[in-house]
């Protein structure tokens, strides 16, 4: 592939284009099955999520729904958005902000029996620290005076 300088320049430009194209095609291939949609319980009830598909489910942890199984590390609870409910099962150490009546996002997939198998739980703070216009960034801290249960 000995080439004159002009030829070589053309080759290099083509290679640059190939790089960009390769990146785009590879990304498209990767994104097709591996991007996780965000759903609410109403979406799940409407059947928007396929069982086994990796998704995120956001809602509020229904009061009275948290059950710890006897192994001490598996927890079952219900996520609700006021209208629909989805039972969730998670094996692991829940984040500190996770509690009944508070918001949470479960990452995982819908099992065949209708229970959501969570591989990860993200807890949201229940106090709105900034109005939604500011981007819904929740505070990383709690206030001190919450009623003891």
């Amino acid at each position, binding site marked *: 592939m000995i080439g004159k300088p002009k030829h070589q*320049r*053309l080759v290099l*430009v083509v290679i640059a*284009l190939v790089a960009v194209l390769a990146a785009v095609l590879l990304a498209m291939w990767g994104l097709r099955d591996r991007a996780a949609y*965000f759903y*609410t319980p*109403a979406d799940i009830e409407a059947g928007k999520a396929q069982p086994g598909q990796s998704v995120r489910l*956001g*809602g*509020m942890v*229904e*009061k009275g729904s948290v059950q710890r199984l006897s192994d001490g590390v598996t927890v079952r609870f219900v996520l*609700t*958005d*006021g*209208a*629909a409910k989805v039972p969730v099962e998670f094996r692991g150490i829940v984040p500190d902000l996770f509690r009944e*009546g508070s*918001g949470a*996002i479960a990452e995982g997939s819908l099992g065949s029996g209708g229970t959501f198998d969570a591989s990860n739980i993200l807890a*949201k*703070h*229940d*106090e*709105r*620290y*900034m*109005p*939604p*216009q*500011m*981007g*819904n960034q929740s505070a990383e801290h709690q*206030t*001190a*005076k*919450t*009623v003891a249960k």
Partner: protein
Amino acid sequence: MTGWLRFTPIVLLVLIVAAMLWRLANPPDTTVHSQMIGKRIPQFVLAAAVPGVQGLSSTQLADGKPKLVHFFASWCVPCIGEAPVLDELKKQGLTVEGIAIRDRPDELAQFLARNGDPFDRIGSDPESKTQLAFGSSGVPETFVVDGRGVIRLQHIGAIEAEEIPAIKAAAEQAR
């Protein structure tokens, strides 16, 4: 061929900047909005949250007049900033009913003494059951409920002064 090609990175930049501008104007929102809008409020009877101020029940919210139902707590920091706005709404003729979640009477009384008390009634919701039933997921949140007890609007977060006309208009429409 290399002529126009050299300008494609700029085109890409423009597209990306446009997307970023869109996102800045529409921040990511994983808030769970209430599914109860357009539906009747849940049945509830809440005891008085503070001595001297009546508690709140759902029947009182369906008396023919539109009302604002405001979820708050003495430990809620943005609620402090919102207090003048609620006072203003009350001054403009709206009825503001309060539901205090997971709170204590003495702290609530202090909060009201310090920040003002625009509430006609304040119900105590110590386990957020009523809050969840409304489809509210945090504080502060305000619902516009019409005369028949149907939820017409959910406002998430503290109401800003500029939003007072919009809230008033929503209450008007809820007659």
